[in-house]
């Protein structure tokens, strides 16, 4: 079943369009990986989907409903978003930060169920030990997990993850990817994640869209998108693609000079 439909979306911050006629679809229980070089428009696309910015043309349908017709709260109950750069100006405990994920459901008093949800999520991501720590004093990777936890306590149908593993060590990369994937499967969510690690994407994404210069360059199964030719054209990198248990496995060789 189609969860999200992005149709012909065009967005520009100034005059130059950053997204040009972008169309993608995500189904229920699917993890979509968004790949592309720096500045390709991955983050911009995710922000459009969560209506943090509004595209100039095109439309975005969530469960066949136009997101511009939904209220912010309604959207927050359906979409969880984790920004690329995380910061927190004032001190707050990890517990309180994750609790903020309940904001779409309550405005002041928290209930037992809210506490329960937070505790479960902390446990799921193995960050219970951080619960009473200050978010400002966490490492980059710990912070990333806290924000993932916060998005999960929103109990969304669709998760938007902007480079969720950029600060994690290999063990935690695998762990977080596994957690996301299993939640998606178990609860029938959908997830879109912008990610730079081709191998991680190949392994955990059900489908991949490869972006370049604000357009979709290629869209399909990891094996059909992550080809030598595509990687060469989009990244300007010569790479070797092997297969490991049916999934492509990319070994970058070198940057192609004077692209």
């Amino acid at each position, binding site marked *: 079943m189609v969860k999200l439909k992005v149709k012909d979306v065009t967005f520009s911050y100034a005059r130059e369009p950053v997204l040009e006629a972008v169309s993608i679809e995500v189904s229920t229980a699917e993890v979509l990986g968004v790949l592309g070089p720096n500045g390709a428009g991955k983050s911009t696309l995710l922000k459009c989907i969560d209506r943090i910015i509004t595209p100039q043309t095109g439309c975005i349908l969530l469960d066949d409903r136009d997101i511009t017709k939904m209220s912010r709260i309604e959207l927050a109950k359906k979409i969880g978003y984790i920004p690329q750069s995380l910061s927190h100006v*004032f001190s707050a405990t990890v517990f309180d930060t994750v609790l903020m994920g309940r*904001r779409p459901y309550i405005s002041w008093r928290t209930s037992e169920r809210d506490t329960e949800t937070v*505790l479960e999520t*902390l446990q799921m991501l193995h960050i219970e030990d951080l619960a009473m720590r200050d978010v400002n004093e966490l490492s980059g990777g710990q912070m990333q997990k806290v924000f993932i936890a916060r*998005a999960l306590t929103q109990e969304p149908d669709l998760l938007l993850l902007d480079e969720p593993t950029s600060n994690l060590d290999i063990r935690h990369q695998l762990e977080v990817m596994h957690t996301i994937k299993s939640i998606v499967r178990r609860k029938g969510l959908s997830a879109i994640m912008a990610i730079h690690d081709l191998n991680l994407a190949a392994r955990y994404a059900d489908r991949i869209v490869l972006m370049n210069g604000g357009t979709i360059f290629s869209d399909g199964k990891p094996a059909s998108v992550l080809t030598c030719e595509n990687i060469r054209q989009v990244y300007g990198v010569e790479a070797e693609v092997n297969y490991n248990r049916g999934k492509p496995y990319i070994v970058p060789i070198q940057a192609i000079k004077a692209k």
Partner: protein
Amino acid sequence: MPPSTGEIPGTRTKSEEIRAEYKKFTGRKVLFILFSIVLIAVIAGVAATLGPYPITVTEVYSIIWHGLFKTPETTKELVVWNLRLPRIVMGILAGIGLAIAGTTMQAVVRNPLASPYTLGIASAAGFGAALAIVLGAGFVTGQYLIVANAFVFALLSSFVIYGLSRYKGAEPETMILAGIALMYLFSAMTGILQYFGEETAVAEVVFWMFGSLSKRSSWENLTLVSAILAVCIPLIMLKSWDLNTLSAGDESAKSLGVNVEQTRVVCFMLASLVTACIICFTGTIGFIGLVAPHICRMVIGGDNRYLIPASGLFGAVLLLAADTLARPPISPTILPVGLVTAFMGVPLFLYLILTRKKRYW
């Protein structure tokens, strides 16, 4: 991962531990708030004994208590209720209002250096007052000339910022820069008035800017201030969770369902109204609005649901204490309270900064 030491199977689970710790943390916040209320009562009692007419602390409390039910008659009662209490109550209200406005402003512009005056409101009010004092020009005539002028100009500057954020989007940077620009503009205009004004008028302007709790603390004025605080502060507190979400950035807050622009503008206008209605009676008492939120944040953390009431009450403690210290026999002459808050607050603040164990914002 090595098994953590001291964890015996069958004892409390991790979740229960977190619950217990969180409860303790919440208890600490509530305790701090109660402690501040007690401090206010104590300092107010002591402050009411100060003055040429001798009254003991116990008498003060009894007079205040009985005065709640009947009009004061004896000299002692009249002294307490009509001479001493108004100033004390103004101190409490101003402390609460300025500290809460400061906390709100810091959250709104997402900057720990903000105060109620960051967006130019103080210099605008100062200019309004100076206009009234030096030229006698203003929006109303009579005894309320200075007050009304200060109030109107204070809000005028807020409306300029409001208009700008409607036009350009309510971004913290835009708001702060516009506020600083307004501050310079109004300071320059006040400067011109002072440059050409008469000596006595200029002195009065300077004195107004130091701030004073005794000059315009009639019960009518206090009623007016309390009414505005009673409306604005609950409204700000209703928004306290939304203010919390701003801390992680606008995008993050939006994704949690918060109407960021509206929250920012509404809270900023409420904080401005609170500030304006106080400083038009007291002058621009500085420091409380910047420091009270920080001291409280060091003690109870940054959750605005508790921080707003706590810093309000602690602001009242600070201002009341400063005003008490500013009076004979404790100090040689009556000092402007705005100066004493700085003399008292800066060492305390530096001490806290130097001894704190971790970063707190």
